[in-house]
């Protein structure tokens, strides 16, 4: 290969979404995150002699829901298979997974690749499987500790076709799935806790060649940032290898975010022969048309449709709609405030403005926001009916954030009502005019353009005098009347 070869990157993703069930996929152990080691691993999870798996119906229903949401095929019959390999975090020496007849196959999803272009990413299959435990390599001198609390957690492995051509597309695809599973309420999407993670298969090929290059599988990608960085690193590494006459080997690589590099995983060196075969402990799963119909009815409005509706019905910009539909929490929050206020743009501005800023600053999830959608909506209504000005609203919002009560209480307690009594405003306006004679003179001798500027000066003075409570449009009107006389 010469240095001028133009390379095309080929990326396929395998996403592991932990399904939001209460109990494990094949046992009644809790799936709650963060318990002391091995306190949520029962006889079945430990693979004790004699134990047998029993399928959790919610795991099945959630997988079907996902399949329906991506327009996939959901065959009537689906089977579980054993994937055989030895590893300390795999208690039975096999993982119960699906091989032939996965629960979901041949779906697709559309992603944005830039402002105006979209792209279809095909989803080959999504199958159910049990998670493995966790190895602790750090806390023991000569040993690795094995914690099997996670063993048996239900996973949906979502396998894409190699349809992505750069890291950005991969991230967009991932974000899209991330948002979708949260809308469907089948996964909490928590990447720090590993509820949503992915492996990337990356290869490169000369742009004019059909044949796929040798791919490397990068593991342990648990943030959007890392995924982008890892893919970019890996692409550079592969190009460098090939251009220096070496070869890419098919292997599993681990991304190290501290060094921003991928490295070969020694533990996965051995060529595996997984010896898949149908799990004789489990009978085939039957998914009837009625089941599908019932599950379909539970699917909420999905982000793509929501976004379009926000633009067409609520007259929001594309930018606003995108941001307000990123996850169901924010969309629900928006819709609740909108239901109360009927002011889409104002709601959007407050949510993406002061609310987002406060959440970010304090590192708080929207779900835990001290200002509820109802509180914000009610406050917006008070702006709408001129009880407070937009400026005062910022003060009110901050007080709500700090737990001083709802908008109404705060306004009353702090006496922040907007002054709309025209007599009172007139009094302040008159005072202001009297106190600023030189500016009045100046105003009277100015051009219209200049007058506009000077009005601003007077409005400012009046507002200051009224501690911000005077209704600005009333002030404006009165000032003009008096000054233009």
């Amino acid at each position: 290969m010469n240095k001028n070869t133009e390379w095309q990157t080929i990326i396929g993703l395998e996403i592991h979404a932990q399904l939001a069930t209460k109990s494990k996929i094949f046992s009644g152990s809790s799936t709650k995150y963060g318990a002391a080691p091995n306190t949520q691993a029962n006889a079945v999870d430990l693979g004790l002699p004699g134990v047998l798996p029993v399928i959790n119906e919610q795991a099945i229903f959630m997988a079907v829901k996902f399949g329906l949401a991506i327009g996939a095929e959901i065959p009537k019959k689906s089977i579980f298979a054993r994937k055989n390999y030895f590893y300390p975090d795999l208690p039975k020496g096999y993982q119960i997974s699906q091989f032939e007849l996965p629960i979901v196959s041949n779906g697709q999803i559309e992603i944005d690749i830039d402002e105006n272009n979209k792209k279809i990413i095909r989803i080959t299959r999504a199958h159910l499987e049990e998670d493995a435990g966790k190895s602790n390599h750090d806390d023991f001198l000569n040993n690795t500790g094995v914690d099997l609390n996670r063993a048996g957690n239900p996973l949906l492995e979502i396998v894409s076709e190699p349809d992505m051509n750069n890291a950005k597309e991969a991230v967009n695809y991932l974000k899209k799935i991330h948002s979708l599973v949260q809308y469907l309420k089948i996964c909490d999407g928590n990447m720090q806790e590993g509820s949503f993670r992915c492996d990337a298969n990356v290869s490169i090929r000369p742009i004019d060649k059909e044949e796929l290059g040798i791919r490397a599988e990068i593991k342990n990608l648990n943030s959007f940032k890392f995924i982008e960085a890892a893919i970019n690193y890996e692409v550079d590494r592969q190009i460098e290898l090939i251009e220096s006459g070496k070869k890419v080997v098919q292997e599993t690589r681990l991304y190290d975010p501290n060094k921003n590099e991928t490295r070969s995983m020694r533990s996965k060196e051995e060529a595996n022969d997984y010896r898949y075969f149908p799990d004789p402990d489990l009978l085939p799963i039957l998914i009837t048309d009625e089941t599908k119909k019932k599950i379909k009815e539970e699917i909420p409005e999905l982000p793509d449709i929501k976004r379009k509706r926000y633009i067409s019905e609520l007259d929001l910009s594309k930018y606003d709609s995108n941001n307000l539909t990123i996850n169901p929490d924010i969309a629900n929050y928006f819709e609740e405030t909108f239901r109360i206020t009927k002011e889409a743009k104002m709601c959007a501005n407050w949510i993406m403005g002061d609310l987002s800023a406060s959440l970010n600053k304090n590192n708080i999830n929207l779900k835990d926001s001290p200002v509820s959608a109802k509180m914000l909506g009610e406050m917006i209504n008070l702006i709408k009916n001129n009880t407070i000005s937009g400026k005062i609203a910022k003060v009110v919002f901050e007080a709500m954030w700090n737990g001083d009560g709802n908008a109404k209480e705060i306004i009353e307690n702090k006496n922040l009502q907007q002054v709309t009594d025209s007599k009172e405003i007139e009094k302040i306006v008159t005072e202001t005019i009297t106190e600023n004679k030189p500016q009045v003179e100046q105003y009277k001798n100015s051009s219209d353009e200049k007058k506009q500027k000077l009005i601003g000066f007077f409005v400012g003075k009046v507002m200051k005098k009224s501690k911000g409570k005077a209704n600005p449009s009333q002030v404006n009107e009165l000032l003009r009347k008096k000054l233009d006389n």
Partner: protein
Amino acid sequence: MSLDKSEIQNIALLARLTIDEDDIASHCKELADIIDLIEKMNSVDTASIEPLAHPLDLFSRLRTDNVTEKNERENFQANATETKDGYYLVPKVIE
């Protein structure tokens, strides 16, 4: 049917069994004899036959999603040779 040394070693590795160098030949022979027995299946044409994974023609029942288990770590770890701080221990694994 014959099996060579490397095949036997590969199977043993997949199965995580160690085989003494001295026993390899006898293992090859034994396994080959059994494979010969198994290959008697080839006397019947199965081209149009559906495989049978399970003797009863049934579909799986599903379990309601409830947490039914409590912590029994102490009870379970009584059977483990090496544990510490609630973890099962294995020789250090390098990833």
